[in-house]
């Protein structure tokens, strides 16, 4: 009996191995394990075995059945995977064909603006808005720019009326902020400004600035340097250095122009920095006492610093854009480059 069963296992295993389709395998299963299958018949014949041997023989038959079932299951798994794989391979497509759903892009200048805002917001600065069409009061008077100052000349400023102009600087936003909130103030104000310059490779009649202002007790010029130095490192590269050069703005005293070590050559000198190793990026200084007191802030208690960055300029520096007019043209080939 045992020999017969082991022969069945052997024979059936050989057949399982040879089978190549799920259907054949299922047929075999029925043939061997089905109602009238070989093993089933043996099991049924157990009643003829004497009672003493019956459990032993029964176990042998059952073990054989389990063994064969497992073998069939295993083979079935193999065959199903193969058949599925064959079926999938018939569905193979040409993956080199494109169907594009492009994701658009912000204008490069606004990407730069976001990056700048990110830095200052993380440092505790609020972001304020102020009008693009502004009064001479906010744009000039309150910034200590007297009525006879050349900056007010119509060749620099677009006038709507005697008192209403297109703002020439985001600094007007400083005043509006200081009128609304009292120290401690940490704010930036990015926005569009206007100067009556004919468009050429380095000028456009509208462009963008970002104003910054800090007013609090004990603010020093070293704080200005530290803040701008961190900004430059965030903005350009971790090893960027900054340099202060004395300058003059009516609304700050002392005033400085701020240079960063050239982002293209690292300060060795190249055609971008005209061989100097430095690129001018912004103007800054300690808020003029007259400006503070004009806004109702006591300059004997509070000091502060302010700065104004040309966003178009730093965008141009970072991306190497050598014509200020191109970013305003909206040529899709330009926009897609970034």
């Amino acid at each position, binding site marked *: 009996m045992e020999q017969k069963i082991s022969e069945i296992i052997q024979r059936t295993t050989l057949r399982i191995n040879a089978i190549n389709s799920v259907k054949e395998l299922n047929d075999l299963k029925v043939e061997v394990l089905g109602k009238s299958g070989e093993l089933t018949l043996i099991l049924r014949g157990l009643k003829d075995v004497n009672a003493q041997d019956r459990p032993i023989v029964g176990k042998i038959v059952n073990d054989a059945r389990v063994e064969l079932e497992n073998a069939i299951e295993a083979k079935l798994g193999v065959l199903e995977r193969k058949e599925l794989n064959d079926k999938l391979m018939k569905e193979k497509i040409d993956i080199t064909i494109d169907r594009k759903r492009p994701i658009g892009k912000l204008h490069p200048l606004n990407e730069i603006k976001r990056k700048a805002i990110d830095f200052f917001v993380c440092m505790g600065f609020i972001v304020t808005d102020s009008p693009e069409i502004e009064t001479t009061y906010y744009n000039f008077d309150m910034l200590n720019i007297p009525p006879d100052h050349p900056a007010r000349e119509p060749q620099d400023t677009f006038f709507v009326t005697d008192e209403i102009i297109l703002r020439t600087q985001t600094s007007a936003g400083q005043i509006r902020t200081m009128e609304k909130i009292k120290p401690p103030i940490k704010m930036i104000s990015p926005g569009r400004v206007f100067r009556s310059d004919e468009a050429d490779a380095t000028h456009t009649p509208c462009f963008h600035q970002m104003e910054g202002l800090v007013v609090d007790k004990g603010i020093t010029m070293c704080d200005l340097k530290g803040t701008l130095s961190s900004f430059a490192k965030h903005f350009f590269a971790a090893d960027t250095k900054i340099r202060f050069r004395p300058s003059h703005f009516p609304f700050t005293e002392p005033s400085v122009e701020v240079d960063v070590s050239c982002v293209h050559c690292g300060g060795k000198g190249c055609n971008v920095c005209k061989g100097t190793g430095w690129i001018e990026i912004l103007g800054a200084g300690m808020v003029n006492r007259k400006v503070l007191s004009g806004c109702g802030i006591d300059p004997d208690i509070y000091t502060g610093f302010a700065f104004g960055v040309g966003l178009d300029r730093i965008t141009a520096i970072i991306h190497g854009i050598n014509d200020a007019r191109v970013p305003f043209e*909206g040529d899709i080939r330009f*926009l*897609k480059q970034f």
Partner: protein
Amino acid sequence: MKLPISWLNDFIETEASVDDICNALTGIGFEVEEVIKYGINISNVVVGKIIELMPHPDADKLKVCKVDIGNEVLTVITGADNVKVNDIVPVAKDGAVLPNGKTIKAAPLRGIMSYGMLCSGGELNINDAFVSGASVNGILILDGDLKIGEDIIKALKLDETVLDISITANRSDCHSIFGLAREIATSLKLNIKEPNFEFTLAANSEKIPSVKISTSECPVYSRSMISDIKIEESPKWMQRRLFMCDINPINNVVDITNYVLLEIGQPLHAFDRKIINGNIIVRNASVGEKITALNGEEYALSPYMTLICDEEKPLAIAGVMGGKFSGITNDTKTVFLESARFNRGNIRNTSLKLGLRSDSSKKFERGVDYYSVEFGRRRALALFEQLGVGKVVYDCPIDERPIKSIKTSTSQINALLGIVIPKKDIISILETLGMKVEVDKNELNVSIPAYREDIDNYTDLAEEVIRFYGYDKMNETFMPTSSVTIGGLTYRQKHIEDIKDMLCAYGAYEIMTYSFTDEKVYDKLCLLENDRRRSAIKIRNPISEDLSIMKTELVSGMLSVIATNLTRRNDNFRLFELAKVYEAELPVKDLPNERDTLCVSLVGGKEDFYEIKSIFTGILDNFKIAYTIKSSNEPYLHPGISADLYVGDKLIASFGKLHPSVCKNFGIKKSDIFIGQMHCEIITEQKETVVKYKPLPKFPSVERDLAIIVNESITIGDIVDAIKKSDKIIENVELFDIYRGEQIEKGYKSVALKIKLVPVDKTLIDSEIADIMGKVLSALKNKFDARVRE
């Protein structure tokens, strides 16, 4: 401001190189814009003497010269006809290089070898003011006493360096050679030598006109008089200095006034004494008054303008230009010299209004001070005497002015700067700048010289100190004393950025255009005559007509960008712009309303109305803003393929296919342009709301398809609305097909919809579903006479 190094050397003695001086200037806040070098790019040009001059045998116009250049005699062919034997001339030898880059080579000219070239002034890049005779059309004939064979640069002292320096608006005192010398001396820690201000007064026989000032625009007017004037050319060194500073030499008297303007920064005016009738009156112009200026032009004056007059006529427009007949001529015997101060704004307005600028008016606009008024006049008198132009017969110094003083302390200065600068450094810097410093422990009492009107309080002194102490010595700190502040964007700013991000996700690229445009765009957009958008804010002084009004819409700018792209053969793109439009009641009295506005355009074959609609409605859906859609009357849109989007009864957006006429007006050749504009307040002014979670439905939803036949005129929107209204259990209705054609009679369409039922409290059974569908059908039948498609 031009600064010739040779002139600077009158006041400081230094071995410093030009680079050192440039660095010093940069370090203290004066940008060197250009270093101009004369006499460079000249090599192998020497002084020569013509010892023989013969006609060229084979050329009428050429001459063969033998030129002695010291160690040899060269044969040189020249075409010039202004040379003769014994003339001293510049000779470019074989291999010489000239400023225009030309190299001179020995070569035969009509059969005779020429071993060099005789040079003109032009070929050496110099003119009469630089070397006399250099402007002559021909060879430059040099002084007889020059050394034969000497290098021309050395012989003529051609190696001049001039720095072109930009001066910040607060430093009018540095629009002068001496003012800059003072700064450079402080920076390089050198002593400064004053110019010569000394002269002797000669006996006077003529009456000196007195001065009456009847305007507030002239705070001081000082005068002096020089007699026995001999008008001639000024000396070459003076002419050369004027020339290097872009002033043309005229005669000795005028040149002295210009020289002082450059050196001390004081504009002077020299009148011919004999045309002054009686006394000088400084007054405002009368209504309708006119004057003919030195340039021969007649100017109609306004009453705010200041005039220098005698008792019967105006002599000069104060600070701007002299009158035609009051100037210096060859017959001038006595000079009345004015050194005055006029208010900056007044000169600026006058000069602007008349369109008349002079070196004098430019300086007055920048500002003069009491130092320059006094010392400028004295310097001129010293020069009149030194150059023997005339005898100083009258001079009257100005009244002493109170000296401004500022009380501060070293700690106050250091507290602003953030570093500790030693007291001795602070004091020494201020003193070398000409300030007097009284010290009491840490307290400083600083007297400010008259030429530093820009210094007003301790922060100005702090700036002077750090300028010379060096910004590089400053530390980097991060506001250790400041309070905690919470940074961030406002909701408006966040929402603007959110909208932009959504547009990017829709595949649109952001553009940026100017805020101004041309009035003509409204006709191009076919706007009606009474359209509010035509009331744009006008710029009073635009650059040009096409940039003359502030935008009231963004569509025209977008269309121009589309046109540009299409002309450049860029096709298939989506663009957006989010910018301000400006609305105001005209004439403008108050600041206008600046509205955040979005414009979107879709260009390309695969775009259609529903794409642009999905963008605008998608944005509103994202912000959970409910809206309604109506047909649009926007004139620039296709009347059948356009929609208005309302929130409540407020129109906030219009979009659709661009009207073919507008396409044409903007030079757009494609027809499938979809465009729309939305005002963003509805989003930007939205308050932040916190979403409260609703439990998800527990019971399975059911979907049923429905196909109905309705009249063509019935809109899908109305059908969907009606279905939704028929039972609140209906959560969503989705169109999946519209069919026209066979089996459907003309004028009708078959509409297939998927209806989703979401039960709240139980699982729906078939009979309930059938009831709801029955309600739907009867609603559709009643409203639209719809019938089920079998």
